[in-house]
């Protein structure tokens, strides 16, 4: 049973305002039937230090990734995870997390792969909730397990694989959401982030560099539509009808950009290439461009 949408005026310009909720709205709705709050952080222990009352934790790495194959959990795994957390297929799920909802957006994107319909982000994430002095608890949340149906993951609409990217080169715009240093090829990891094993540095030819964090305002909320249009349409040259592919290093930062392009700007058919640089930068014979310019797509 879905919970009513947050009608806050600050969301009304976005293409899909129903995908965001404000901290005020969420606090007023805590405990509502049909609402489950999910925390998803970069730090696997952050939830334990204090979380929104009633929120359950889903960890991007230990819960959403398959432990063996480099892939997400399958339909059965997802059903077991959500059922075990007490989340029903028709529940409204509000996800929030640290670092401007970086990992929350990633979780939302994975929920979308499984077609969980009503999944929203808390605008401003964990930091805004704490900054406003809203309630937190260290009490573990106990929700009775429910049956979540086994739904096969649909990788065809919002997920891109390496061959899709190769085929799209020159026709679909690519957005590289990593830091300028990673884009130009000075380094293979985000500044201050651990090495994740790409053998080559640079970017996919023709990709525009729009670091993911540009979509966030100082307080961690998403920037207003006019500013987002200036960044992605005027700046990166995206136009309606483009089948955009976004990528980063392992597909997490680009989930954030996928959310912005899809739900805030209203682009259709945006895909996240989650193999991202850790795959492309180690793949044999794929084209790579270095430097600050997008570079030419090699003739085929």
């Amino acid at each position, binding site marked *: 049973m879905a919970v009513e949408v947050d009608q806050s005026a600050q969301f009304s310009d976005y293409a899909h305002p129903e995908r965001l909720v404000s901290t005020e709205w969420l606090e007023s709705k805590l405990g509502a039937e049909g609402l489950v709050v999910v925390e998803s952080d970069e730090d696997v222990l952050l939830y334990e230090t204090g979380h929104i009352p009633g929120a359950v934790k889903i960890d991007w790495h*230990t819960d959403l990734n398959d432990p063996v194959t480099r892939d997400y959990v399958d339909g059965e795994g997802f059903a077991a995870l959500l059922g075990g957390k007490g989340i029903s297929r028709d529940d409204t799920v509000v996800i929030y997390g640290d670092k401007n909802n970086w990992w929350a957006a990633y979780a939302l994107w994975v929920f979308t792969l499984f077609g969980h319909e009503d999944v929203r982000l808390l605008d401003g994430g964990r930091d805004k909730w704490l900054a406003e002095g809203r309630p937190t608890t260290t009490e573990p949340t106990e929700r009775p397990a429910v049956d979540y149906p086994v739904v096969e993951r649909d990788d065809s609409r919002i997920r891109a694989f390496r061959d899709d990217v190769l085929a799209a080169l020159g026709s679909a715009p690519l957005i590289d959401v990593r830091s300028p240093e990673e884009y130009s090829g000075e380094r293979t990891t985000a500044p201050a982030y*651990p090495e994740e094993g790409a053998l080559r540095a640079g970017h996919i030819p023709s990709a525009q560099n729009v670091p993911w964090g540009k979509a966030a305002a100082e307080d961690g909320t998403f920037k207003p539509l006019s500013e987002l249009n200036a960044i992605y349409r005027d700046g990166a040259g995206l136009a309606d009808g483009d089948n955009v592919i976004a990528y980063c290093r392992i597909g997490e930062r680009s989930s954030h950009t996928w959310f912005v392009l899809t739900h805030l700007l209203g682009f259709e058919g945006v895909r996240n290439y989650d193999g991202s640089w850790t795959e492309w930068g180690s793949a044999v014979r794929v084209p790579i461009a270095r430097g600050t310019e997008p570079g030419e797509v090699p003739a085929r």
Partner: protein
Amino acid sequence: MSSDLPAPLAEIRDDFLALGQRDRLQLLLEFSNELPGLPERYSEHPDLLERVEECQSPVYIFVEVEDGVVRMHATAPAEAPTTRGFASILAQGLTGLTPEQVLDVPADYPHTLGLTEAVSPLRIRGMTAMLGRIKRQVREKTAA
């Protein structure tokens, strides 16, 4: 050669391994909460601290070797409890050892704590890197 592991490190490892996965996270959180603040002489001298670049969160370490005894200090923000936990394990496990004992700690000690499943191998790498940097500081400080 885990049989030669210094007692404090062996105890920490055994404490983790005695627990189920969920409780291991709780124990890591306890370590995180126990990480002592920096001694004043270092909080006033941030230049003495070395950043552990391999960790996702800003964590800084400093190793002292005095009278043949190693002391390790670390600081990391409250928003990074996992990193604080890693630093705290090493601070408690290594402080009081001789430089030689520290250098002999197996590089894969972080992987023996049984946290790989609960925390993920990727995150454990940050702790491995921290241990490597500690050893390098010990080497530098005993070479003189």
